[in-house]
């Protein structure tokens, strides 16, 4: 594998546009480049276009225009898809499969042979503390267990680019910190991470770089410190409110609350 310095960007998006059948323009001529090896945060309010952007990268929506490349490979190609692992926001687990089978079959879909997929499934079961639930079907798992399984599935085939769409939404504090630790370690091993979250402190703690998305466009992008400096504010929350949540009006409201 080439080093981050010489590697093409993990994700390169140019002119990405998505208009849904009902006429909603979810993404408008969006350009974004995420360097290989980075830990990148994508923040924005509900309906800003985060999930649509992720869907476009993962072949889950039909593009209206634009181009996507993954590590220099066309985003629609098989090689590019092999390099991506996604944990979606909603637990979308196959109800006919147990925890072990969910991981085993996922490995198979991504081209692993049985022994390799099985060995890797067992590793992920241990890594995500799912051993006691190994032979339990997905619908019988608790919310936290489902979240663990989603992450384990996303990472099973050892992708170079991992996309985590609000991975800690609705999980307890203990699990959230446990997941943070694992994701940090994953990043240290060379995996590029694209994280969307509504928890600003999570983005600030984890991400090297943050982009703010609003109305289907990237409106600001820098490190957390750089963003604060640019907008002359003390917290990422203030940057968020100024850029994507109604500008001065929202800031005024926040000052009143304080």
């Amino acid at each position, binding site marked *: *594998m080439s080093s981050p310095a010489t590697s093409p960007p993990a994700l390169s998006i140019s002119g990405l546009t998505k208009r*849904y*059948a009902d006429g909603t323009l979810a993404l408008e001529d969006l350009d974004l480049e995420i360097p290989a090896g980075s830990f990148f945060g994508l923040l924005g309010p509900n309906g800003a276009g985060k999930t649509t952007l992720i*869907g476009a990268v*993962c*072949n*889950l*929506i*039909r593009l209206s225009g634009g181009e996507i490349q993954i590590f220099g490979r066309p985003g629609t190609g*098989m*090689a590019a*898809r*092999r*390099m*991506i692992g*996604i944990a*979606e926001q*909603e637990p*979308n*687990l*196959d*109800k*006919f*499969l147990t925890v072990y*089978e969910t991981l085993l*079959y*996922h490995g*198979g*879909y*991504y*081209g*692993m*042979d049985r022994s390799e997929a099985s060995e890797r499934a067992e*590793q992920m079961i*241990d*890594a995500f503390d799912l051993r006691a639930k190994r032979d339990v079907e997905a619908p019988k798992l608790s919310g936290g267990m489902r979240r663990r399984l989603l992450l384990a*599935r996303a*990472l099973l085939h*050892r*992708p*170079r680019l991992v996309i985590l769409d609000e991975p800690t939404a609705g999980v307890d504090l203990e699990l959230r910190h446990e997941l943070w630790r*694992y994701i940090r*370690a*994953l990043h240290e*091993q*060379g*995996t590029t991470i694209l994280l969307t979250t509504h928890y600003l402190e999570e983005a600030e703690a984890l991400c090297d770089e943050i982009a703010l998305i609003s109305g289907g466009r990237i409106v600001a992008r820098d490190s957390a410190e750089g963003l604060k400096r640019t907008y002359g504010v003390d917290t990422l929350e203030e940057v968020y409110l100024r850029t994507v949540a109604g500008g001065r009006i929202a800031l005024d409201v926040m000052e009143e609350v304080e």
Partner: protein
Amino acid sequence: MNPLPPVDVEPHPWRGLAWLTRRECHRVLKLWKQTILAPVISSLLFMVVFGLSLGDSIAEVNGFEYRVFIVPGLIAMAMAQSAYSNNSSTIFQARNDRYLDDILSAPMSAWQVHLGYLAGGAMRSLIIGVVLAALALPITGAPLEQPLALLLSVLLLIGGFGALGIIVGIYAQSWDNQSFINNIVILPLIFLGGVFYSVNRLGSPWEQISHLNPLFYVVEAMRYGFLGAADVSPWLSLGVVGAITIALLAWAQILFATGHRLKP
């Protein structure tokens, strides 16, 4: 446990298809009471009630005892409905619960996903067909005259109804939609396609109208395979069924290739 570093390997060209096929067959076998036992029992009941109980009071049809005459059509009906309902429900469920995303984002081409989803319905339909034939032939004394023609008609039936199930599963907005197609379209057309009677016995214009029913040719192709005789030429039956199957497979393939209704 510390995570392992990412790996950069080219995806295997057909392993994804093999695993999706396996997943679809796994689902069929896991739900075997519903997917296999129930349709076998209901088809056997038809054979017992119409063939063995009432058969003696009905004169021969086209030179065959009635109990023998109805066997190919009943097997065709069970196999067609199984291939259809399996694929429509598995696709609809995967769409509805969004676990289809794990397939759509995987490094598999459209034709591989299409073929993988066809496999479950094909396996279920074949198991039901083989079990019914194994039970019905000795009981009724029905022959197996044209095995090659039967094999071809079975393949076309499975492909056609499997593809129809996929198409309906992709377009369906609710569980009601797919059962509606089965109960209001497939079942009546099969019944009116000569499962229980020879359409040659119908007067004009019903005989001619029956020839417009595509399911009539499915029943006739299967009947020729088992009995070696049918109301129309086997070439005509296989030709019509083949043309319909190719059209349905092409439609399903276009849906997978474009993502129409599978992806927003």
